[in-house]
């Protein structure tokens, strides 16, 4: 909606709109449909003349065949194809995070003041032996075995896998810079590492996906950790998909594929058809990296995730990322994004329980990803059982993303999910990096506040401490499955 009185007809909005929704002809701006509500025009209008409103419903109201359904039907009737979308699902599934409340210390144990007392948030990523062997050598003892390859991070936050290709060079540079500043780890995403980013390698968790794009031993030896991607929460059972429009010269070089071709990773790894095969790939990667770095496995949260996770630890994974069904994506079939997988809250709680039952939980670092929106979500997922919260969408939002769900089109108006030079240059990597740094610093401070209130002075004592959570939702079965007590239930 443009306020004719305020508009000075400068044409900025139309220039900023990369989705072609605005037309500027004869010194007049006209809306011509196709707005994705990315909000870019509003931010750039010098007179605040333009407003993006909910587009009025052109379909007669119907509670069952919603407008969303009817739009989808129309689109498929036109194209006969699979509907693509991006970001996490926008269907209004109930949030379990919001049904959980945190505990605080009162009287019988003191709370800790984070302004006056140290509260530690250092977190390690990698395998733990579960047992240190200290032997007497002569008069003194020596640590004989039990240590291993591990990466230290200043906070229990990791930036998830956002590949160069799905996002611009500047975006990835901003993310890596932020990881460096924060002393945390960032995912490379599929497709290897651009040579310019080799100086960030010691902060990179390198993804080895089914396409194996850009994976070479030289590169693997430089990074902090290696992660085999089996699945992704937004599209469990599905491979990667980078549309040809995004495969520019730069992408073609890092991924080692021809320019302009769709980069389609196979659905499964074609050398992994079983847990034994996974074990072999883990061993190969460990060999290739001289056992100097942790090798992890990333899987989507699916129904049988407990048993799958236990298999993955037994196969030798040093860390494991579970990606919940709300997890984001640069491009995925909508039917899968919206309807497959399970919520991360339940997945983490059940995996933590299962691994504990099997005596494996202290052998592995458990990372949770899939739409952690706030420090509260992060704290809750840690209390449910995760060592680390892996975050993507929130980091992108910090940089300017409006979650318009149109990344797959490659014309992101904010210069994030695009390869078009004129759009990509809209993002200043320095400013974007600082925004991410600020966000995670703030979250970590909030984590400290909460830990202090709980009377805990180091984050590891919150991991899987489900005792400190209570369920307030409508479904007690949910609480039972997650092994969380209902509100009102005390300790004794």
């Amino acid at each position: 909606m443009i306020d004719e009185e305020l508009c000075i007809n400068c044409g900025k909005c139309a220039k900023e709109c990369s989705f072609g929704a605005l037309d500027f002809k004869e010194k007049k701006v006209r809306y011509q449909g196709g707005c994705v509500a990315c909000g870019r025009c509003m931010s750039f209008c010098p007179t605040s003349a333009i407003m993006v409103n909910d587009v009025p419903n052109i379909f007669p109201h119907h509670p069952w065949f919603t407008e969303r359904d009817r739009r989808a039907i129309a689109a498929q009737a036109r194209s006969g194809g699979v509907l693509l979308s991006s970001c996490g699902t926008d269907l209004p599934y109930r949030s379990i995070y919001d049904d959980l409340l945190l505990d605080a210390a009162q009287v019988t144990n003191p709370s800790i003041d984070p302004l006056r007392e140290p509260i530690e948030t250092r977190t390690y990523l990698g395998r733990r032996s579960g047992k240190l062997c200290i032997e007497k050598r002569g008069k003194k003892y020596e640590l004989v075995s039990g240590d291993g390859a591990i990466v230290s991070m200043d906070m229990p936050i990791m930036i998830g896998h956002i590949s160069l290709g799905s996002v611009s060079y500047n975006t990835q540079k901003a993310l890596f810079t932020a990881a460096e500043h924060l002393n945390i780890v960032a995912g490379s995403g599929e497709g290897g590492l651009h040579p310019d980013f080799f100086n960030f390698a010691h902060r990179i968790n390198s993804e080895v996906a089914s396409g194996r794009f850009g994976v070479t031993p030289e590169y693997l030896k430089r990074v902090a950790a290696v992660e085999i991607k089996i699945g992704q929460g937004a599209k469990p059972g599905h491979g990667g998909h980078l549309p040809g429009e995004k495969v520019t010269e730069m992408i073609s070089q890092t991924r080692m594929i021809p320019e302009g071709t769709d980069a389609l990773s196979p659905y499964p790894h074609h050398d992994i058809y079983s847990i034994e095969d996974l074990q072999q790939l883990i061993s190969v990667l460990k060999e290739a990296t001289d056992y100097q770095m942790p090798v992890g496995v990333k899987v989507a949260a699916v129904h049988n995730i407990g048993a799958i996770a236990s298999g993955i630890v037994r196969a030798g994974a040093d860390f494991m990322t579970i990606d919940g069904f709300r997890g984001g994506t640069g491009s995925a079939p909508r039917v899968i994004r919206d309807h497959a997988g399970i919520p991360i809250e339940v997945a983490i709680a059940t995996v933590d329980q299962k691994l504990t039952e099997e005596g494996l939980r202290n052998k592995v670092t458990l990372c949770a990803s899939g739409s952690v929106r706030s420090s509260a979500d992060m704290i809750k997922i840690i209390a449910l059982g995760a060592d680390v919260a892996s975050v993507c969408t929130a980091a992108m939002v910090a940089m300017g993303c409006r979650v318009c769900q149109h990344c797959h089109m490659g014309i992101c108006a904010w210069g994030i999910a695009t390869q078009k030079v004129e759009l990509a240059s809209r993002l200043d990597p320095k400013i974007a990096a600082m925004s991410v740094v600020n966000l995670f610093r703030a979250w970590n401070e909030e984590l400290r506040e909460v830990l202090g209130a709980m009377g805990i002075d180091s984050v590891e004592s919150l991991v899987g401490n489900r005792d400190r959570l209570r369920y307030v939702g409508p479904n007690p079965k949910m609480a039972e499955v997650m092994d969380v007590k209902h509100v009102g239930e005390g300790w004794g």
Partner: protein
Amino acid sequence: MASRPPGMERQPGGCGIAGCIDVRGGKISGDTIAKMITTMGERENGLGAGYVGYGIFPDRRDEYCLQFLFDNEDAKTRTEEFLKDNVYITGDERVYTRKVSTLDPPYPLVWRFFAIAKEKLDWPRGPIFDPDDRIVELAMQINTEVDGAFCVSSGKDMAVFKGCGYSHEIAEFFDISRYEGSMWLSHSRFPTNSPGWWAGAHPISILDWSVCHNGEITSYGVNKKLVEMEGYKCSLLTDTEVIIYIWDMLVRRHGLPIPTAAFAMAPWYYPLIEGMDEKSKKLATWLRIVYKEAFLNGPFSILVGRREPETTMIAMADRKKLRPLIAGTSEKKDVIFAASEECAIRAVDTKAWTWTADAGSPVIAQRGKGLIRSGLEHPFKGVME
């Protein structure tokens, strides 16, 4: 009494603790410890107290003493049958108890069996060959499966005497003055709820380990997972029970020297670790990584007793020192004391020399060796340095 009241899970609250050990081989009468603990009257409210004596069965030094609380004769019979199948019973007797006018009945039946472990224990999870592991498994099995029976201690040449009442009432009930031991630990409680559960009182003991604990562990959920992974069954659901399993696991099963195990439970902060010498830094870092679930967060002070390889008392507080703990020695340095308050030590030895240890740093006294650590040293003194 022996069985856990329905719905009861954890018992938070404050407490008093006191302990003493004769490091030169002499004996200390039960009266001494009773005097120490009862002096700190403000730290208890009559809802639980207890004692553990070491070196009290000199004639049966090498037999396990399984001391039980039973709700009734039937529970005893069932326990006895279970024991007969799994250990060689070498003797048994009723533990002397008497009526205390201020203590309301019903009283539990207190019984002890002396036993030798069988060569191996065939267990659903596979045979167990280590005799100590067999006893641990049996005690946990009885406590979780046999209704109305509770094994309160299972070590050699030691026993636990505890119940629901004030510390002076429990001392009177068991006539604690009839025993003489080389080491005594004791505990009095100020719980915020009143379960009236005798077996739930402290000290908590498994094998030759016993723990008296004042505090509330905020990391309980995490610590519990660790010990369950190691096969311990949490039948008491108190943080104290978890602490004792962690000691047993780290020291007996994983073979860590005591100061190292203590460091895992109350580690230094990372910036301090950075300042250590290289070897200590490596050990400290890996203790924090590998045993992060053993870290006891929140306020506590504990007294830990152990008999193997030699009777030892360990006293330590959390790494912020949020609960009180004071140590002392007699003038001749033959008796080492530790307690929540100085008055407990002064009550039995007016000339004792007392000090407070560093936060998270264990005071260790051992029979034959004397005071091994005063709690003011580097965490790895005697281990790495």
